[in-house]
């Protein structure tokens, strides 16, 4: 692997990311499964970086999951998107930051389709007025929330209390990055680093002291596949695609997987559980899995957030080996406590996965 070759490509795919004043839009999956990640993101941008980032309670799903499950027409999803954009403009913002990768890809595609077919844009403008009495607007900058963390990765490193380094050996942690397919595969120029060697997560890992490992199936989808997951009869597809990735990364012995798509950390986590429980195979050390974290969680860890405030207890793959390597202090007894130490029980143990 020739590092300089990648650098050359990275230098060709740098997108403009505005400095401040962001309109934040949440992700259905991230909110449902990783609510602490979004909370951490807002805390970092607002309180650690001092940025203005605004959220309105009136925004909704973009409809992307329903759209990519072919349950709603294109015109419907485009009008919902137009509504989100209108809310941004109404609140005086023009920098649109979304938490979801499916949304991000869909926004890019929608803007591109409107550009190519102005009559469609006109139709959506009309739809928006008819249905919501809102004025049509488009963002000046469309960015994914991971783009923002990427932009401020060095500021975060400056405030970090620890690095992505094994404190026992002094070696950098080996990190696998997984980019959501819809981040840049459709529009390579919209993603930091392009589609083949995206830099958005690599940049974070480098800035925070980890070592990136590139493995043959790096570019492959996690296997979500929308309808291929939601319907039980189709889940073999989803599972098998994740399995293919893990078989490919196994020889590299990664310590950690970092993701920027909301769904991927769920699938890369839970499918390890299913593979372990149904076949006995595990990919981490001594029967453990490989933790698959969101970029917000990884940022939070280096900045010294408590792992249980970050929600790491809601991953099925245990994160303790990673925390031990990083020298993160944590109280195992507090892992599953509710707010203010409330006892809310704990998950049943797995039969195979540690």
């Amino acid at each position: 692997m020739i590092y300089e070759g990648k650098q050359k490509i990275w230098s060709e795919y740098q997108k403009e990311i505005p400095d401040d004043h962001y309109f934040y839009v949440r992700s259905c999956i991230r909110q449902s499964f990783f609510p602490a990640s979004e909370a951490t993101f807002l805390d970092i941008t607002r309180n650690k970086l001092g940025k203005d980032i605004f959220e309105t309670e009136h925004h909704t799903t973009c409809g992307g999951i329903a759209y990519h499950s072919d349950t709603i027409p294109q015109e419907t999803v485009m009008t919902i998107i137009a509504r989100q954009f209108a809310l941004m403009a109404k609140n005086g913002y023009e920098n649109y930051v979304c938490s979801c990768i499916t949304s991000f890809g869909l926004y890019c595609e929608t803007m591109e389709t409107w550009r190519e077919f102005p009559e469609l844009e006109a139709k959506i403008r009309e739809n928006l007025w008819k249905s919501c009495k809102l004025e049509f607007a488009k963002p000046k900058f469309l960015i994914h929330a991971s783009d923002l963390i990427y932009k401020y990765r060095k500021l975060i490193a400056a405030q970090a209390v620890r690095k992505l380094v094994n404190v026992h050996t002094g070696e950098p942690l080996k990190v696998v990055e997984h980019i959501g397919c819809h981040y840049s595969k459709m529009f390579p120029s919209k993603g930091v680093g392009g589609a083949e060697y995206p830099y958005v997560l690599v940049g974070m890992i480098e800035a925070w002291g980890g070592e990136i490992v590139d493995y043959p199936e790096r570019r492959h989808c996690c296997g979500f596949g929308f309808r291929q997951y939601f319907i039980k009869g189709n889940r073999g597809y989803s599972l098998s695609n994740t399995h293919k990735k893990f078989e490919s990364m196994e020889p590299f012995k990664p310590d950690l997987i970092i993701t920027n798509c909301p769904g991927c950390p769920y699938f890369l986590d839970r499918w390890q559980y299913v593979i372990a429980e149904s076949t006995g195979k595990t990919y981490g050390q001594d029967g453990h899995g490989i933790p698959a974290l969101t970029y917000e969680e990884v940022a939070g860890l280096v900045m010294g957030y408590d792992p249980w405030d970050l929600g790491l207890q809601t991953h099925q793959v245990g994160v303790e080996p990673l925390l031990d390597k990083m020298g993160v202090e944590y109280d195992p007894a507090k892992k599953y406590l509710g707010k203010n130490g409330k006892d809310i029980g704990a998950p049943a143990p797995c039969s195979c996965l540690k």
Partner: protein
Amino acid sequence: MKNNILIIGGGPAGLEASAQLQRMGYNVILIEKDSVLGGHLAKWDRLFPDGVPADEVLSGLIHGTEGVKLFTETEIRAINRLEKSYNVRLTNGITVLSDAVLIASGFDLFNAVKKEEYGYGIYDRVITNADLEAYFKNGSDKRIDHPKRIGFVHCVGSRDEKSGCRSCSKVCCATAVKQAIEVKESFPDAEVFCFYMDLRLFGRHYEDLYLKAQKEYGVRFIRGRVAEVSENIDGSLVIKAEDTVASKPLKATMDLLVLMSGMRPSVSGKAVGDLLEMTVEEDGYFAVRSGIAAGQRSPLPGLFLAGAATGPKTLPETLADARAAAVEIDRYLTEIFPDARNYKQLVRERW
């Protein structure tokens, strides 16, 4: 009849046209931007279909240019069209008043780095056709270390709109087959695979070469374009394609992957064209005057084109082009150019 003729480009087209025009008695000035003559031919080891050494062909071409005024490491600084002739200032300080100009600026090899998914310049064991020729010529390349499995990827920067190159580069299929045979000669134990979309083996003896590669060398031809390449922990490469004959995705591990970089319009040729405000077509190559019968004439009177400046060509085609250019230049300089009174009308009628 000692007209000055300026020939731009010292590759096969420029050399051959120089030789022909010199023999006809013209005063030929040949400029070449590099320090050596021959263009890509100088970097190639052997040529399809019969494997003659490129050196031999090149020295033959150079030999024919005796008497030609030759300037290497020389480019054009400025060029003006006077009433009939071209006033050309060269970077070596010399100014030439030329009655006819031949652009033989050739092609650039596609920069394989741009086909990002193949990882040239990123994965250690991905090389190009040009790298392999250099290896055959010089005998060393640390990326080539007793490979057991070698893959050839056709159409790299050809027939690919994503890389901005729609056209077929014509020579890569035959080059791949030739190199597959040669690599098998160098490493008899190796398994060799060619991944192609269509095998365009149109020329004389090319099909024989293909048959030979299959029959005598056991080269495996797989119809399917390579979709992506990645690197294993041991540095070997994983390639993915669809075998479109079987309608199934496939993967294979390779120790060496050779990308058949195609032809792209020459960047330095384009710079010369810009000085003359010459039209290029959508594909980036220079436009000939009109249609298929235009031969070597450019839209500008007295300005001619030969070789890959007007699109991908094989070596024999390039040489034929050069000879045709010589004939057309001669015709122009004898039938149109001398008639000062009727020059404009003759240009209208016969250019």
